[in-house]
């Protein structure tokens, strides 16, 4: 065996940069400590929205960034999650903690159902099909009397803060921690996924499906797997959001805007990169919340115009997203020449 091969084999699998590990750990500690400094309710809300949207975008990142399939109807899985917990709580008093996994399973089931025929379509056709599916979910729920049709569901408020009912009225701090924990767990799941055999194979499917086939990869199955994982990450955010606002209706939780914003966040931050959705959400969500505050009802669409502008600038100058400003070897990719 020659020398170069021995050296190559002795390299660590991943270039774990100690500074990055330190940065992540301190960030996590900081996020956990933040409410202790007495954040007011607006900032708590802002962070909750950032965490939630980062997870939602991460979900979209799995199907679009890893397996290369552009889904424009991801709001459907958000809505399924929202309705699953609210419906079972209102009708049967079942704790959201129990119905949340159910919502996750239903989302996964629908992803299989939609994915089997639709993922045979390539490129733009899959995107168009998912766009229509997303809209049709909204239409169905607007007319479905069992789940309150267009007026939606009102989750009855508990008299006190309750962990089992997942309702907190005295302060948003508990919500903050719940969303934060989901945010961290999702990040690590997707991070592990990106480094796993599955992650490698999904990227192969994304980069060149024809070549992937020659390497024993069943391309359609892998696309479906990615779609199901993606849907299952999205659903609990719907559930938590429903418990956070306590009123859900089809216009809110099946809104096309949800499907679009997860795309915007991911593209802004960096598609196909675990960090992309986090960076994207940390920038886009504050813009959105502040523009709503300063412009109020009259300027409701101004944030959308802003998004459009940002997206155009990113697509022209930084197609790999803001994450591309960070040198790759700092994050994780191993490029010692």
């Amino acid at each position, binding site marked *: 065996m020659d020398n170069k091969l021995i050296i190559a084999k002795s390299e660590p699998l991943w270039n774990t940069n100690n500074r990055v590990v330190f940065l992540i750990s301190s960030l996590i500690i900081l996020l956990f400590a933040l409410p202790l400094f007495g954040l007011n309710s607006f900032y708590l809300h802002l962070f909750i929205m950032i965490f939630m949207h980062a997870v939602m975008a991460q979900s979209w990142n799995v199907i679009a960034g890893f397996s290369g399939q552009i889904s424009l109807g991801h709001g459907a899985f958000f809505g399924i999650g929202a309705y699953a917990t609210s419906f079972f709580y209102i009708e049967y008093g079942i704790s959201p903690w129990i119905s949340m996994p159910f919502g996750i399973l239903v989302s996964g089931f629908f992803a299989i159902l939609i994915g089997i025929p639709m993922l045979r379509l390539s490129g733009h056709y899959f995107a168009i099909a998912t766009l229509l599916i997303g809209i049709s979910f909204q239409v169905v729920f607007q007319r479905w009397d069992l789940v309150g049709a267009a007026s939606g569901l009102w989750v009855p408020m508990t008299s006190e803060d309750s962990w089992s009912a997942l309702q907190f009225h005295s302060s948003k701090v508990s919500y903050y921690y719940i969303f934060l924990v989901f945010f961290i767990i999702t990040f690590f799941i997707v991070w592990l996924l990106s480094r796993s055999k599955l992650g490698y194979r999904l*990227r192969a499917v994304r980069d060149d499906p024809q070549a992937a086939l020659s390497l024993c990869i*069943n*391309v359609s199955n892998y696309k479906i797997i990615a779609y199901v994982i993606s849907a299952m990450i999205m659903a609990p955010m719907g559930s938590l959001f429903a418990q956070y606002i306590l009123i859900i209706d089809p216009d809110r939780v099946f809104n096309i805007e949800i499907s679009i914003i997860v795309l915007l966040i991911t593209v802004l931050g960096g598609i196909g990169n675990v960090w992309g959705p986090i960076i994207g959400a940390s920038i886009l969500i504050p813009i959105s919340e502040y523009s709503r505050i300063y412009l109020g009802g009259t300027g409701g669409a101004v944030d959308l115009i802003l998004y459009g502008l940002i997206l155009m600038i990113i697509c022209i100058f930084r197609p790999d997203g803001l994450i591309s400003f960070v040198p790759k070897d700092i994050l994780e990719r191993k490029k010692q020449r």
Partner: protein
Amino acid sequence: MKVLSVENLSRSFGGIKANDNISFEVEEGTILGVIGPNGAGKSTLFDLITGYTKADSGKVEFFNKNIFGLSPDKISNLGVGRTFQKLKPFADQTLLENVMIGSFVNEKNIKKARDRALEIIDFVDLIEKRHHFAKELSTGQRKRLEMARAMAIEPKLLLMDEVTGGVDQKTIPGLVDLIKKLKKSGVTIITIEHNINIIMEISDNVLALDQGKSIAYGSPKEIQQNKQVIDSYLGTFDAA
């Protein structure tokens, strides 16, 4: 031992018979060279064998197992590797990652898959380029990448589409040596090749195609003397 046996394989596109009743066999450990002018149906033949294009009729057996009509991933899973004439590297991934995607087929453990991939990359002499993205490699290097990636699934039969096509003269001998080295490692090979000298040098048998038909099949010597081959292919080569 017969590795591959193809019988009366046919496929038409519209009115054009891209492959018309092609039959041949490949013995274990040998190299079959496929020659023919552009449009003779060489790449179509590869696509039919590997399942990328569905054949209209015929029979394809791999180690006496019928593989006709199977999907490409199933065929590769049985041990048929291939490279592409129009190269298909995973451009945004490093050479190592490209090859690892192949070595994951037989190795679940990520470290072992990495080490196996490194051995193959070393075999194709690109170990120093392992962390380069595929899009940064030269054409010759990307050809090696495709060979390495196909080898990583540990195929019993390897189909190579124009390994020496589109690279400069200086790069060719290295690639030819690599094919020889591959054969020595025990892999059975079918290779499409335009360079007639290379075909004569490396092949145990040669299949000559013209306009979708098999016009000759035999040892390199026989092919060289075959009148039909000289007329339709070699002749033009001499005149040029």
